[in-house]
């Protein structure tokens, strides 16, 4: 499914992510309002959203809600807000790519860049403040 210039794209993405990780994430962005979804919709079997904010608002939010606090019915979607499980960056990367229990795997529907983007967004918003950004390379290694 992921074809073509993968190595080139990965290298480029890594470079961009590395550059971005030098910037500190503004504290004011944390918990400020709900993430914006944008008007577009994906075509085919890959998400077209590229930014972490858009990916969160179009994918994660479906279950974990716009405030990332999750919801409870007969079972619970866990809160991702101020969640210490996000401290180790590999944990959310693994779960987004490969799924966990009832949560579907998103690895086939997102590129390494997209997974990195949404994990980085999550780890710097909703009361999370982890500055060590994950890179597309980090995503690549957990793909099974």
């Amino acid at each position, binding site marked *: *499914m992921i074809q073509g210039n993968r190595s080139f794209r990965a290298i480029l993405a890594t470079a961009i992510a590395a550059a971005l990780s030098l910037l500190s994430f503004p504290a004011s962005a944390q918990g400020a309002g709900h993430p914006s*979804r944008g008007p577009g*919709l*994906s*075509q*085919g*079997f*890959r*998400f*077209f959203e590229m930014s972490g904010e858009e990916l969160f*608002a*179009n*994918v*994660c*939010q*479906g*279950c974990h*809600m*716009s405030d990332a606090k999750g*919801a*409870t*019915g*007969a*079972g*619970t*979607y866990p809160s991702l807000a101020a969640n210490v499980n996000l401290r180790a960056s590999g944990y959310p990367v693994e779960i987004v790519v490969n*799924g*966990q*229990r*009832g*949560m*579907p*795997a998103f690895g086939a*529907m997102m590129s390494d860049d997209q997974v990195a983007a949404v994990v980085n967004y999550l780890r710097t918003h909703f009361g999370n403040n982890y500055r060590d950004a994950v890179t597309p390379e980090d995503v690549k290694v957990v793909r099974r």
Partner: protein
Amino acid sequence: MQSERAAVSRRDLLTLIGTVSGSAAMYHAMTSLGFASDSGYKGPIKLDGDPKGASVIILGAGLAGMTAALELRKAGYKVQVLEFNSRPGGRNWTLRGGDSFTELGGFKQTCEFEQGLYINPGPWRIPYHHRAVLDYCKRLGVALEPFIQLNHNAVLHATKAFGGVPQRIRDIKTDFQGQISELLAKATQQGKLDEAVSKEDREILMQALRSWGALDANYAYKGNLISADFRGYSKAPGGGLGAAPAPGEPIDLSEILKSRLWRYLQNFALHTFQTTMFQPVGGMDMIGKAFAREVGDVIRYDAKVTRIQQDNHGVTVTYTDLKASATPQQAKADWCVCTIPLSILSQLPLDVGDRMKAAINAVPYSPAVKIGLQFKRRFWEEDEAIYGGISYTDLPIRQIAYPNTGFNRSGRGVLLGAYIFDGPNAYEFTSMPPAERVTRAVELGASLHPQYPAEFENGIAIAWHRVPFTLGCAGNWSESARAEHYDHLCRIDGRIVLAGEHASYIPAWQEGAILSSLNAITRLHDRVVKT
């Protein structure tokens, strides 16, 4: 999953021909080997032997749970059922005018449909070979009517083909079939199939292609009254003066291939969707209600299960009464049939072995979104002569399904304006507030039916990951997970056995839920009478 390749290979084409035409041959071969066509249902279950007063607690009053309750009680067990919802049926569910539904996240929708109009947010059709569902419908007095899967006058739509103009299914189907027949006839005439087809069969094949493909005497597929007999006319035959018919022009094979509209034809060929399909008269929940007439007296509603324990003597289930006190209550029984979806069960403290636990944790739940739309009039019938059936599109709404009941009436109608499953769009629609899902479905559907904006009145949108009692549509087994875990999921663990569509090879279908339940209670009963 539903992805497609960019080019059509020869093998693809042959597979397609097989799908559209030759499946009959495969079907005959399979059935001659032993009933490949039915679901394995062997008729009403017989649980012989004395359970000696044994008790069973059943978790979940969906079709799996209520099947277990009905049959176990009949066999002499003391049964009780705990159900999260305030109604029976689970995913067997119908929304009608006046019903309200609050999804996870707190969005509350009230269905504003006119009385008598409805939508089935979950299962909505029953294949003729789902013998268990059909048998329970018969035994419980649930009236059925046809569900129309193939309507030749519904449309296929691709945003980037034919200038975005929807094409009639009969045109695509007939022209595709006709031009493939012409190709095969040419290849046969040129001797290119001599190795594959015997001399004796060749002549018959030519006759068959002419008959099946609507070819002319020269084995050509053209716009003439022969093909018009199949695809319809540009001017239909009438009465009196000037009534002679005129044929239309076929759509070029290359255009059909490039449009990818052929990919929808398998929705009319797959065994699961073959005629005759059924729906209960009045809504799918007629089945759940019929079960509840039998076993409703043993169902405790509004009971949220929070823990399942077992020891050598029995099973203890802890639950909260959602309508009364927050104080946890306990129910005990000798045995437990648990039909709680794995998306929820995987979160509960549960006394079972590691292998069953691993199996419970191995199944992600699919997303799915259904949107019902009410219009001022049944314009699809009045303007377009589409009576029931389904139109398919590559737009995110995927399909528009017309009501298979109330035909030819004047006044309002409700159709299914979107059925989105798997893939990005299902998640994107789940992430929207319900009102936006409805708005988007109306905007997108207008590409197939320009009457939409003027005729639309109201709608209701169900995103299954937001449904509090399932947290998803259905168990989505991967092949590897099934190979590793399925048997461990189904085996009895001490005094607990699981059932539901997730414990079947017919996931997301009611037949899977009932067959899984019958299989589980048969094994449980064996164990009970032997101990």
